[in-house]
């Protein structure tokens, strides 16, 4: 078979437009070996897994990656990703807390804490003690949380019955539009007039509507804008159930999508608290901070 025939008959390369950027970071100005207490939070979510290291109560490093087909391996891989970069071993970590959908399947965790408590604690660290209302837009669920100035949950609501208003929904639209997921947010503003939202109740219906809009002559950017608006309306209705206070903070992958974030801000009439820390690590960071508090309590006994 000559090269031309081989090229013509080969299966087309499948592009994964939904694939978001996995990343690893650690604070190069510090040395973890100087820390007295090292704690780790592992957030095994339905779509992404994060491992966060906290040295003496301060964020030191993290690894964020896609969740595999089994929770224990996802937890191990997430932690190994950051430990390999900094030359750390599991024995060097004093306490590990598991959280997220797969929290009970983190084999080396000393304790499991729900992602609701961990996101509130993480948001309190990332956004400061002014944070009161938290929206976690996860891979396959969405949570609205109220917390006090210490990051303790006072009210929460979770919707995990359908994928509308979740990261997975955005991945579906990314693949449908054949546009990389990171470009969806900026492109949603590149429209002359803001279109009506598509269905905010179900991703399957939203996808059908999106296809219908394309056939009706909508540009891709208009369809993306309609979907971002639907997602914003969906989560705002959840937030309104528990009430929205100033000190609004968004965690989870969708916090990186300005198309959704700006529309939520517009609907609520308030701005979110800004942070430089990756919004996806809030749960794991909160878990690591819980671990640090538990270690301090143990030491005080």
């Amino acid at each position, binding site marked *: 078979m000559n090269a031309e025939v081989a090229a013509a008959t080969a299966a087309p390369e499948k592009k994964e437009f939904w694939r978001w950027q996995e990343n690893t970071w650690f604070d190069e100005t510090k040395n973890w070996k100087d820390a007295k207490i090292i704690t780790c939070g592992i957030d095994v979510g339905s779509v992404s897994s994060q491992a966060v290291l906290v040295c003496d109560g301060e964020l030191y490093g993290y690894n964020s990656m896609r969740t595999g087909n089994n929770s224990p391996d996802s937890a191990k891989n997430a932690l190994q990703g950051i430990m390999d970069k900094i030359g750390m071993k599991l024995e060097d970590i004093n306490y590990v807390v598991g959280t997220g959908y797969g929290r009970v399947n983190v084999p080396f965790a000393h304790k499991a804490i729900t992602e609701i408590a961990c996101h509130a604690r993480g948001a309190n660290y990332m956004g400061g003690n002014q944070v009161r209302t938290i929206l976690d837009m996860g891979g396959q669920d969405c949570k609205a949380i109220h917390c006090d100035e210490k990051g303790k949950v006072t009210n929460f609501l979770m919707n995990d019955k359908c994928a509308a208003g979740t990261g997975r929904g955005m991945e579906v639209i990314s693949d449908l539009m054949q546009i990389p997921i990171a470009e969806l947010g900026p492109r949603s503003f590149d429209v002359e007039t803001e279109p009506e939202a598509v269905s905010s*109740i179900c991703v399957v219906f939203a996808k059908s509507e999106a296809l219908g809009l394309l056939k009706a002559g909508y540009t891709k950017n208009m369809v993306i804008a309609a979907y971002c608006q639907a997602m914003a309306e969906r989560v705002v209705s959840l937030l309104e159930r528990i009430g929205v206070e100033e000190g609004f903070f968004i965690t989870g992958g969708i916090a990186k999508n300005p198309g959704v974030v700006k529309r939520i801000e517009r609907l609520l009439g308030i701005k979110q608290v800004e942070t430089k820390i990756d919004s996806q690590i809030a749960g794991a960071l909160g878990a690591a901070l819980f671990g640090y508090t538990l270690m301090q309590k143990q030491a005080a006994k």
Partner: protein
Amino acid sequence: MIANYGYKDGSGEYYISIDTDKCIDCAADRACLTACPKHMFEIITDDYDDEVAWVKKECTRALAYDCAGCKPAGGYTSLPCTTACTPGAIKHSW
């Protein structure tokens, strides 16, 4: 803490709210556990080490159907769970 268990779908919003601060020293002797015909409530230790009631995970996605029998159409004038919970910790959104 107000814990809301349930969902919103195309047919409406279905949430059971539990004020867990009222659960900690339950004045009704955990009556919710036996009052619910579907045994949807359970006592757990929450993230802040308090023993509180919650709605079992497997029940939270079908409240509209599971609770239907206790609504007026099912012959009840008041919900067994909210009636049994004399501290008033349990509320239905619908």
